[in-house]
């Protein structure tokens, strides 16, 4: 493995450990929003898709990149919005004006 490949791998392992530590502290109460939120983040592939779609190295690459941008964008936008929609519903005390 090349020097830079090794660096990338080190980053990957350390980030995984960091993720485990931070995410272990999320309570079961919020596990669904956690999943949809982390899902939105996994749409970060969007940035790879954008480079490929905008580069236009080959015509096929542009087509594949554009479809990838669309898919990743659904993942990102949908993921964040649905997470926000869920988190909005979690209230500590009952709102007396809430419809019953």
């Amino acid at each position: 493995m090349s020097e830079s490949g090794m660096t990338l791998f080190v980053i990957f392992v350390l980030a995984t450990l960091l993720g485990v530590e931070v995410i272990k502290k999320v309570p079961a109460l919020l596990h669904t929003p956690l999943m949809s939120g982390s899902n939105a983040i996994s749409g970060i592939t969007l940035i790879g898709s954008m480079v490929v779609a905008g580069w236009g190295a080959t015509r096929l690459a542009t087509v594949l990149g554009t479809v990838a941008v669309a898919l990743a964008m659904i993942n990102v936008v949908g993921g964040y919005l649905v997470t926000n929609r869920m988190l909005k519903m979690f209230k500590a005390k009952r709102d007396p004006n809430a419809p019953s």
Partner: protein
Amino acid sequence: MSRAWIIELAYLAAAVCFVVGFKWMSSPSTARQGNFISAIGMLVAVVVTLLDQHIVSFTWIIVGGGIGAALGAWMAQAVKMTAMPQMVAIFNGFGGGASALVAAAEWHRLALPQFEFPVGTAVSIYASTLVGAVTFSGSMVAAAKLQELISGRPILFKGQHIVNAMVLLAIVGLAVYLTREHAAGGWFLVLNGLALLLGVLLVIPIGGADMPVVICLLNSYSGVAAALTGFVIHNHGLIITGALVGASGLILTQIMCKAMNRSLANVLFGGVGAVAGGPAGTTTKAGHVKSIQPEDAAALLAYASTVVFVPGYGLAVAQAQHQVRELADLLEKRGVDVKYGIHPVAGRMPGHMNVLLAEANVPYDKLYDMDAINPHFERTDVVLVVGANDVVNPAARTAPNSPLYGMPILDVDKARQVIFMKRSLNPGFAGVDNELFYLDKTSMLFGDAKASLTAVINAVKQL
């Protein structure tokens, strides 16, 4: 400072935003800000990517991005909370699909004679293709099962594991061949097709009841797919972010497996729903079952001082979350202390039941997870179990030969009285009889959960 520096620093800032966002998810009072800062991180990453010197035209980015953003926004708005697991599976699949497509596009560029195609990059591309395509097709099958477009029953055939292993071997073999013969586009297509097939093969033997585990695992895969894309295009931001998501999915997978008393290998390869479904009723003590009328159940609840509701997925199927909350309101007005005990697998994905109850305006400080509620049962007058069964079965503690043995459960049998709302005496997913039904302290209120709850609500109003 050079442009490359600015871009790297911006990706680092985005990654920091994601970590802070996860951290703020640890409390419901800060979770919304957490989601917001995470979205800001994503925006930073996207904007700075537009500065990338490889990008020569924005046309197709805008077209693809516009379509994707509109579709995503519409889906997020339209989805019902009960359908959240399918939605998450579909989003997952799209993320994985995007990773596979980026890998394919990069492959097509690097196969051109004027570019170098280093072995390290080739390995990343084939890994990214494999994980991305498996995530895509696996997620689509999982979503179809959850939406009941296809049967939730495990689909098993002879030699399944051997077929899966052969497909995986063929993929690896092709990848090795392709690192030598860059221009063999036909074989690269075959590799993609096999990876998609593998995703389908891996999910069809898993039963509907095990879908929570599968969704978590696919969530993890989509993170790994993003990280692998980072290896393909040498992007630190993607690697860090993908690793975070991969870790998140892995933790949730582990929690779900523990809650279901299964090893991951057993979920993935066991096909339990089909095999162990047989011995229903074998542990039956054929005891006496006491049934109860809504009026008597209402009196029991209304004159109790502490009540715990234990909702299961049957509650969501009956769409009775609002009735549960209404009953809790009435009881609280009479001075009864009401809590909710939520088992980790109460819904169809981790934390699902909490979302369904929050949607029905249940305040989250009344929602107790398993470890928090179990010490309370000894001091609880009445437990009302709605649409749950296996997760309260004491056989998990007492019967070493039961398939449930060792599974963590809600100890409702320690309460003074238990009321079960159930359609019939049918056993739960695991096909195991529940001795709780035959205890003296247990009363069964038979019927549809929504109808029963409405009857109890009316009876409480008249007390």
